[in-house]
């Protein structure tokens, strides 16, 4: 950890963090504003939903829309959120290490008494800070919209809404963790991006296919995305603690490996 480097890296990346955070917050806010419309016509919506095949609904997290948590999970956390945060995690993980090695700027950062471990620990912290910021903004967007802009008496359980964000944060801490690990392994930014992006896409696809095709739902045991089920968090159906511990551990282990590997490897600077 180096404070001056952290400050400078945060300044460089803040625009990107705020961009993702704002996009995510605005989406949640708009969806929250739409919730009362749906709430009033819930019966009709439920009838319409019954027309869709069940696996598809499961894959999209659309099983039920009766509470705010379920609604927002279906409308955002089950799909767009995963895509947006997936892109964010892979992109920033690659930018924070592999890009600096590929372009040679790492030579400057490693020209002083500051060690490799300190530089990478700082970069990991920058990534986590960005992820926290995005989730805070998203949570705030939903909370403020529901509290002050929408006139609904019940149905909004903020505990669940918080957990949806919290476990989501841990999911992308894990995704970012293995992306940082890949980022620390490669000399070429594009190769690192292709591999980290490819793996993330594969994990996401495995979760989707496992939900759609019940015969092969075992495939979901091999992807971290299956540990994040916002719709079921909203229904209090899942063991949040267990998923949190597993996702958090993946992230921590990946970060520790990132530090160890980067310390040992030859750098083409």
């Amino acid at each position: 950890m180096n404070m001056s480097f952290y400050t400078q890296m945060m300044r460089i990346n803040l625009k990107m963090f705020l961009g993702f955070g704002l996009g995510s917050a605005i989406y949640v806010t708009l969806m929250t504003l739409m919730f009362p419309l749906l709430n009033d016509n819930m019966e009709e919506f439920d009838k319409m939903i019954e027309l869709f095949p069940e696996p598809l609904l499961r894959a999209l997290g659309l099983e039920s829309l009766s509470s705010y948590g379920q609604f927002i999970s279906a409308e955002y956390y089950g799909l767009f959120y995963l895509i947006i945060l997936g892109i964010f995690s892979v992109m920033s993980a690659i930018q924070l290490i592999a890009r600096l090695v590929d372009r040679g700027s790492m030579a400057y950062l490693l020209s002083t008494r500051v060690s490799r471990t300190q530089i990478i620990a700082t970069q990991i912290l920058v990534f986590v800070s960005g992820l926290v910021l995005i989730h805070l903004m998203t949570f705030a967007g939903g909370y403020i919209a529901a509290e002050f802009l929408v006139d609904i008496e019940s149905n909004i359980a903020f505990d669940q809404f918080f957990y949806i964000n919290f476990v989501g944060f841990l999911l992308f801490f894990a995704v970012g963790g293995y992306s940082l690990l890949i980022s620390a392994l490669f000399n070429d930014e594009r190769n690192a991006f292709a591999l980290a992006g490819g793996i993330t896409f594969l994990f996401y696809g495995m979760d989707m296919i496992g939900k759609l095709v019940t015969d092969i739902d075992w495939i979901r045991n091999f992807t971290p995305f299956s540990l994040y089920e916002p719709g079921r968090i909203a229904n209090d159906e899942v063991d949040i603690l267990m998923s949190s511990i597993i996702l958090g551990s993946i992230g921590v282990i990946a970060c520790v490996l990132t530090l160890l590997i980067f310390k040992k490897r030859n750098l083409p600077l």
Partner: protein
Amino acid sequence: MMIEIKDLTQEFSNGKGIFDVTFDVEDGEVFGFLGPNGSGKSTTIRHLMGYMKAQKGYAKIKGLDAWHQQSSARSHLGYLPGEIAFLDGMTGHQFLNMMAGLQGVHDKARRADLIDKLQFDPKESIRKMSKGTKQKVGIVATFMHDPDIYILDEPTSGLDPLMQNLFIDLVMEEKARGKTFLMSSHSFAEIERTCDRAAIIRNGRIVATENIHELQSMQRKAFNVTLTDKKEVASLLESEMKTEKVDELTVKIELQGNYDVFINTLSGYHVKNISADDQSLEEIFMDYYSKEEVQS
């Protein structure tokens, strides 16, 4: 000993690399590291900076192993990378602040003095700077924390002749303050002006470590002499010097220390023009090799 490199070896998968590189740089010395592009200069420097682990041998800075004790070894260094690659989206000031934070030294007066000397606007975004200005920012970052040892990888590339002179003044000033330099270059002229000693590297092996004056005397110079008369050209070609006819009226004369003969011979001719033809590094190498071969 400020820098100590012994049997340093790193062979890459394509067979290239550096092999048994050995040299020392003493306290207060300006040491040149000469070699054509791709000869292993940067690879050697990467070991000194702790970016690579030697397969054999070692590199030490002030007795500290450049790999195992890399951060303490680097704490004595000012490093100017060969290819300047900054972080995106910073101004010169922000970059220098960050570097000062990493170096742990905030000598604002020295930094301001350097910026003043090199004449550039640090408030400008680095992305918009010209190559030369970027190089200046790099030079300030290298010098501002007043390190004991400077490692400069091709420092004057990208600078105009005026700035090159200014840079050489800066090096000489620091040398007068007792600082040590390792400076790589592919141009003999650049090394000649500043260095006390130089090592020549070729295909990953050190072929010579010499006092700079010895290297200078080894350097062969060629002059193109234009005369007015074809008969004179014919007689000049007969002289004892190494001559070669370039065109009808011009003769190329190669000299190696025998400047007196050159002057005395030409005094008998009507010379219309003389132009000097500096020898390239490759040619110095070729000379060096032919000398080695004759000896062995």
